[in-house]
């Protein structure tokens, strides 16, 4: 961090145009890289939950499926909170 950045942070000047360029880019690139629209992502989340629900009882409100980008690779991250394990019917 430079002195200028420290002053900017102290005086609350974080919404510089360079900052908004960076954050807008990060957002748009996660989707560019995967070629997935938010609608497709949501559809996928519902279908994955359907499969997982055969084995586990899920907390539907807390589940999410997001794209995360690090270095040059993008990962699909699913967060599916479990209520309890279903007893398998044999």
């Amino acid at each position: 961090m430079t002195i200028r950045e420290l002053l900017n942070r102290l005086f609350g000047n974080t919404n510089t145009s360079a900052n908004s360029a960076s954050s807008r880019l990060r957002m748009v690139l996660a989707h560019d890289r995967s070629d997935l629209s938010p609608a497709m992502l949501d559809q996928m989340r519902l279908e994955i939950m359907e499969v997982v629900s055969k084995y586990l009882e899920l907390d539907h409100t807390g589940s999410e499926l997001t794209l995360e980008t690090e270095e040059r690779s993008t990962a699909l991250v699913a967060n599916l909170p479990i209520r309890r394990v279903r007893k398998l019917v044999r």
Partner: protein
Amino acid sequence: MPSSGLIAHIDALKTNNCRSIVLCSGKGGVGKTTLTANLGVALAKLGHKTCVVDADYGLRNLDLLLGLESRIVFTAQEVISGSCRLGQALVKHKHEANLMLMPAGNPRMMDWLNPEHMQSLITMLADGFDFILIDAPAGVEDGFKNAVAGASEAILVVNPEISSVRDADRVAGLLSSQGSVDLIQLVINRVRPRMVEKLDMMSIEDVLDILAVPLLGVVQEDEQVIISSNLGEPLALGKYKSPAGAAYGNIARRIQGEEVPIPDIDKPAGFIDRLGDFLSTRII
């Protein structure tokens, strides 16, 4: 001093002892052609036999920037169709004996040219040169795919601007999935230090962080570039001292494997600038 790891990696990329490097950006107007002309001159000055290939068949300009537009007799078109020999189409640079231009063919070539044609042209050239620099057209369509086909390395040219970085990211993705390119390096071009300092332009770190492509060099915005294009005399010839000219020379030395530190962008020395310098002191 060259680093042995880098040298070993670079050696693996050579065909017939020749390195073929495509310069691409996705977005137009970021300085690809200017960089190609200058790196061609700079590598030639370092003693490497260098060929710059104009692969921008639609909007060719490499000949103009090198001041060779009036010396073109044959082009890549005649070479590929077999109606002239390779040596008849190559244009020797006026001042740098090590530098040759392979001019772009007629725009109508875009209708039939395919990646195999480009590969065979580069293979022919590889016999006679140490370096082949290929100036790709803007865009990610057929012209780009042709330009990339003969290359084993790529230099991604980007400006610290939101649209340029997005397009470069797309190109980096295409290059890694395309197969023949094994090394992608980044040149951040047309950086305006004053704007970066005022946090009104993304910094080098911002761009590197987002693109995650290894940095080959940084060139700052420089009015001399326009003057040198007017004259058809690339800054790398060294006729005039200029920040961009020095940066091109440094990039060429890094390409040949030397470890040249990437300097903090030059800071002038007026009072306001010294204050700016003080504010830019790293504290964490």
